[in-house]
């Protein structure tokens, strides 16, 4: 498994969140999640302006094998979506932590980030899943 970037936080359901300098939180799915799903063929994006609640499903990623909800790690307003994924959903397979971001939220409650898993805790969670 590749290194997890140190500036990311995670939900147990394998979404990542990155707090950026401008205060936006960018969201995607983890390297582990894309690898489990396999080749992605479709991404259903939220709408810009949507109000989202922490832990609610607001996007869907579909691979050949399965459809999976994407939960938002923070509450707030969706301010950007990655439209490029509509034509190239495989970008998530190729660069889950970079070009494969899915949406960005202007958080309504900055403390939401503190409740998320840090990279070490997330790596530990993956080890536990592997053990089962």
């Amino acid at each position, binding site marked *: 498994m590749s290194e997890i970037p140190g500036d990311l936080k995670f939900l147990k359901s394998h979404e990542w969140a990155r707090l950026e300098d401008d205060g936006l939180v960018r969201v995607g799915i983890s390297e582990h999640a894309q690898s489990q799903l*396999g*080749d992605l*063929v*479709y991404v*259903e994006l939220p709408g810009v302006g949507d109000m989202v609640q922490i832990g609610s499903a607001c996007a*869907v990623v*579909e691979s*050949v*094998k399965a*459809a999976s909800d994407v939960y938002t790690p923070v509450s707030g307003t969706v301010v950007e979506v990655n439209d490029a994924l*509509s034509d190239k959903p495989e970008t998530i*397979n190729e660069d889950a932590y970079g070009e494969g971001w899915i949406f960005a939220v202007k958080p309504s409650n900055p403390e939401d980030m503190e409740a998320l898993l840090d990279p070490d805790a997330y790596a530990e969670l993956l080890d536990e899943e592997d053990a089962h």
Partner: protein
Amino acid sequence: MTEMTVLNPVHRALGAKMVDFGGWDMPISYGSQIEEHHAVRRDAGMFDVSHMTVVDLRGVRAREFLRQLLANSVDKLKVSGKALYTCMLNPAGGVIDDLIVYFLDESHFRLVVNAATRDTDLAWIRQHAALFGVQVEHHPELAMIAVQGPNARSKASSLWPAELAARALALKPFSATREGALFIARTGYTGEDGFEITLPGTDATALWRRLRGAGVQPCGLGARDTLRLEAGMNLYGQDMDASTTPFEAGLAWTVSLDEGRDFIGRAVLERQQREGAPRQMIGLVLDEKGVLRHGQSVHTAQGAGEILSGTFAPTLGKAVAFARVPAGDTGTVSVDIRGRQLAVRVVKYPFVRNGQACAGVSLAIAAAC
């Protein structure tokens, strides 16, 4: 208990992602499932299908037994090596399994049946074979490798001695030749040309390695599923089962109501042929973005049905599916995907044959199938 084919260590060494498939630990892909799919459509790929069950039937009344056991007519098999695709039905006309039967000689036929239904099938076959004095030999020691794609036959036959290679290349579709325990059939489950090669398990790893050396791409069950669905082929347990007749599963072409042959399930099929089956299987294409999947509900002018097999079709770049819906004119059809009703087109399948989209499947001009 999980079962493993003799090639299991080879898959693991290749880094395959393994899944449970009907009690078997099998590779779903070795990397990208879509690339494996394209390898079969464009060049050559191979699948470990050693979980399939090989059954030899021996006895002078073998043909007579199969006339009763199978819904298709073994009387179509006249030349040694010829194969036939057929269903095996229960008395209610429900499909116990679909299988391929090979005619080898008058006292030797070979069946290849599904892995997930092995125990039920063997019990059913043995029960009826006993009445005809036919011996039922299950061959778990045999392995099977399917080599499929436009270049599959030339790549595979390059590994064989000249005489055998010539014989294999001369095979007509749906027929087989033997060389000792090596059994080469020009059959498959992908909509492409190719061979299904049955051989002793002890020889399987060597053949797999030599095929790799000849440039054949290892492919997992993920690609096998998208290839067979594009090719319009049913999957037992998903597209039909013991509560479905062949007429309700798009398999009328495999039923032979030939005169005087009293096969198991015939009475129900004759009634359905007279009165019409209550349900039908249709092919669907979704032109919008999204993926059709097993279990989604389907709305037609005649009422509701559901998606049986559904997937993203890599050759077409859009989703296709089989659905079972009430009989009659379907009218405008839609599918419920996460609460949204998306319009789908009803099309004739196969969706893809020999690498090309079939007429009516793509909106653009396509090959006739």
